[in-house]
């Protein structure tokens, strides 16, 4: 087994330095027995070796130290050559062989399956520094050459203006920054979305908020569709709020070739129909709670429902990361015990 590419099931939360935040989190979910699509990770070792081959003295990344995180033009000037070099760098043959072998092993009966190529940086998806959306993801990749191109593009995205600016602002040292890449079987998604194990609008931890739309999750994450939205009680399982929206667009895999994802109109008869059933909703919420219970902090989970699999086997979790917006707020206790229970009432009724 090489240390350049590892199957997702072999890694867990402690392997962030090797497989990045996303890879570690997905590995952990597989270990928990959660339904995660088959995947492997091109490790940070592979990234570091490629970088070392390009820039043995580390001179290039040294040019980023001390830049002004708000000076976009300056950052662009400093990072563009790095990205260009990484995007065009030769891949060592051992790595190429490993990547291709794993890619082929995802399919069955000799045919390959479409994959998502997702960047997984170290330091990403941690509670205090959410890199959400700062690095690249490529969907619906079907052939080896494209896969290898996207692998390099993911590496290069570690040096996007946004990523570098983010590290500078947060004081994350460049030497510690590395990029792993997750290659994961695409889900032929009928519906997808995100869910939060607390209310994103009120921070309430007694509910799971689920957003859902037709097709691939990219339309939801990208905000191109107003998703259906559900608030489900963790305590009773009841759907407390249900907003079925008019879903005009959806992303679907482009079956014809290399274009990846197609943006299309939702057929009119589906637009105002709920994109998940109540049964599916209940299963999703249960999965979200399993993830949250495991990590002990609120989670933000991406999910999809495959339309080429039977009910019971068609739910997938694509990623989970700690929720950051509410978890970082410190709160005073809302109440404290009083000498006598009725003092609570006397105090409240006594207020003018």
């Amino acid at each position: 087994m090489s240390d350049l590419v590892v199957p997702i099931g072999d890694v867990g939360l402690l392997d962030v330095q090797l497989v990045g935040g996303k890879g570690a989190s997905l590995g952990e979910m597989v270990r928990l027995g959660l339904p995660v699509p088959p995947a492997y990770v091109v490790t940070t070792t592979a990234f570091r070796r490629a970088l070392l081959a390009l820039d043995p003295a580390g001179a290039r990344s040294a040019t980023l130290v001390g830049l002004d995180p708000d000076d976009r033009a300056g950052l662009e000037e400093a990072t563009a050559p790095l990205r260009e070099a990484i995007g065009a760098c030769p891949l060592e043959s051992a790595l190429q062989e490993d990547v291709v072998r794993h890619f082929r092993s995802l399919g069955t009966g000799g045919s390959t399956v479409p994959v998502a190529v997702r960047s997984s940086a170290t330091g990403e998806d941690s509670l205090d520094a959410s890199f959400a959306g700062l690095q690249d993801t490529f969907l619906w990749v079907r052939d080896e050459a494209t896969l290898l191109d996207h692998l390099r593009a993911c590496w290069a995205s570690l040096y996007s203006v946004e990523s570098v600016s983010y590290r500078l602002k947060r004081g994350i040292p460049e030497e510690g920054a590395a990029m792993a890449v997750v290659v994961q079987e695409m889900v032929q998604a009928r519906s997808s979305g995100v869910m939060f194990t607390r209310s994103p609008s009120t921070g309430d931890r007694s509910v799971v908020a689920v957003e859902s739309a037709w097709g691939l999750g990219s339309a939801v994450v990208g905000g191109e569709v107003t998703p259906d939205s559900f608030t489900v009680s963790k305590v009773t399982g009841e759907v407390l709020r249900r907003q079925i929206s008019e879903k005009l667009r959806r992303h679907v895999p482009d079956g014809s070739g290399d274009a990846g994802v197609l943006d299309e109109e939702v057929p009119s008869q589906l637009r105002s129909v709920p994109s998940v059933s109540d049964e599916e909703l209940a299963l999703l919420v249960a999965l979200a709670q399993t993830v949250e219970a495991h990590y002990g902090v609120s989670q933000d989970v991406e999910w999809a429902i495959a339309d080429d699999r039977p009910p019971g086997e068609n739910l997938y979790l694509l990623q989970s990361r700690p929720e950051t917006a509410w978890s970082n707020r410190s709160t005073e206790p809302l109440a404290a015990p009083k000498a006598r229970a009725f003092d609570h009432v006397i105090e409240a009724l006594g207020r003018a």
Partner: protein
Amino acid sequence: MSERRGPFPLPSEITDVPGAEGWASMYAPFTRFGPQDDAKFWFYNATHFPEPLPAFDGISSEVAYSAIGANTARIFVFPATLGIEHRIVNGRVYLAANPVTDPEEVGRRLEIFQRRAGYYYEHWDRLYGEWKQRMQAAIDELESIDVPELGDVDDEEVVTTARGYASNHLVRERFHRCVDLYSIVWNHHIEFVMLAFGAYVVFSEFLTKAFPEIPEQSIARMVAGIDVIMYRPDEELKRLARLAVSLGVDDLLTDGAEPRTVFEGLALRGEAGATWLAEWERSSVPWFHVSTGDGLYHHHRSWRDDPRVPLAGLSRYVSQVRAGDDLRRPTERLKEEREEVARRYRALLDADEERAAFDQMLGLCRTTFPYIEEHKFYCEHWFTTQFFAKMREFGQLLTRFGVLDEAEDVFQLQHYEIDQQLANVMLAWSAGSSPVGTDEVKAIVADRKAMLAVLATWSPPPALGPEPEALNDPAVKLLWGITAKTIRTWAEAADPSSARIQGFAASPGVVEGVARVLASVNEIDQILSGEILVCPVTSPSWGPVFGKIKAAVSDSGGMMSHAAIVAREYGMPAVVGTGTATRRIKTGDRLRVDGDQGVVVILS
């Protein structure tokens, strides 16, 4: 007059309903709006008085509002309230709160309030036990009151015991005693109600801060009793349905059968029929003293007085029993669920001190909540239906003496006017003559009946006067659930072009269906399976209808209203407290009832 234009009309802008211009004669002068009232915010008490008040029924508002403010402001000395005022216009009751605003005065009152409220909380179980005895004593006394016959000559006993006064004296004395008992019972009704609701609201507010998305029904579920009196009348019907099937007399309990036919039929069924009738009688006292309404109107008869309502329920339960349903509530499971809901919310709290406060508040609620659930049975149902029945007996006396055409007409007179007419009878009996001026009384009765019919067509605005900046009265909040949000909802609903009716999300789920608008429980036989019930308010008598409908919508009520509780138990959507549903929805309209959002949409 105020220059300010809010969404609501001023009291002085309300005009008499054409055809009922004389409505004011039905109510005591102290209930009328005056010019000074334009400066205050008034809300329509649709919760308790959803129909125009007959002249006699004005007593329900008189004794209740005499008791509420007295309890809060004079007995317990709630710091921020001086009481609740009421007015009647076009037959409808409007309320305003009188707040205490001076902080120094609030502080002075707070010191007294803490001591007095503390005493009740501290001794709650004992005091509540004694309360039940006092209520029972009032009911017993009322039931024991005989309306004098006023026969040819008084009993011999009047002489042998040297009583010294004739029976006509007792007519008015006993009438007064009935009225006084009604007042006492209303004072007792209020006695615990604010403190009990207060405990609930404090718990609810704490949970809503900790869990902003928590549905009110989950809070209610943690607190609610399982074996509460409110379910009992309906449980008795289920028991009688099972019994009828096992005794083989269920064929007599058919839909729409006249009570007389049913009871006569059963009497002819030998031992089985006799057994069932004996069990009916056993259930009937006290459980069928339940009112067919909320108990504040004279025409809210008890099941015992008017068995059509329980019989309609029975026929439905009988067919369910035949179909193999034993109709038993899974009380053990409900109890476990209640504990599980509480356990889970408690576990979701952040800090140990919050959990300790949660335990205190929940514990207090469970101590005080039985009062909330039970007091209505004693007061609004049992006592009140018996009180109106007693008034009918006085009506019979007036009818026998030719003052009225029929006993029921007594309810077209104010209790002050009945007092006069009883004097009229006392004098006539004493003088060996006939009561004087009876034609005039009969004309008044006829006139008022006609006016009530006209007033029923009036749509009372939910509120009058300037929109308040803050609504801070504990009684208004606790008893009517009215907050600044409610008032905003009313203001929005005041727009007649909207097909959207906002209420409170009382029971989750969304369904579409056909509306059936019912004005009272006496119409429940009209409802067809699968329709959506739209009604002013429900009470335990409506219980049987919930097995038939697919959603419930009411004009009044909050999360703890009967419709809300029963809809949750049946797992059907309900929107309550809409204010306007029965006026804006017509039978046959297609509706979407969204119990998650508390919205009813008229689709077509």
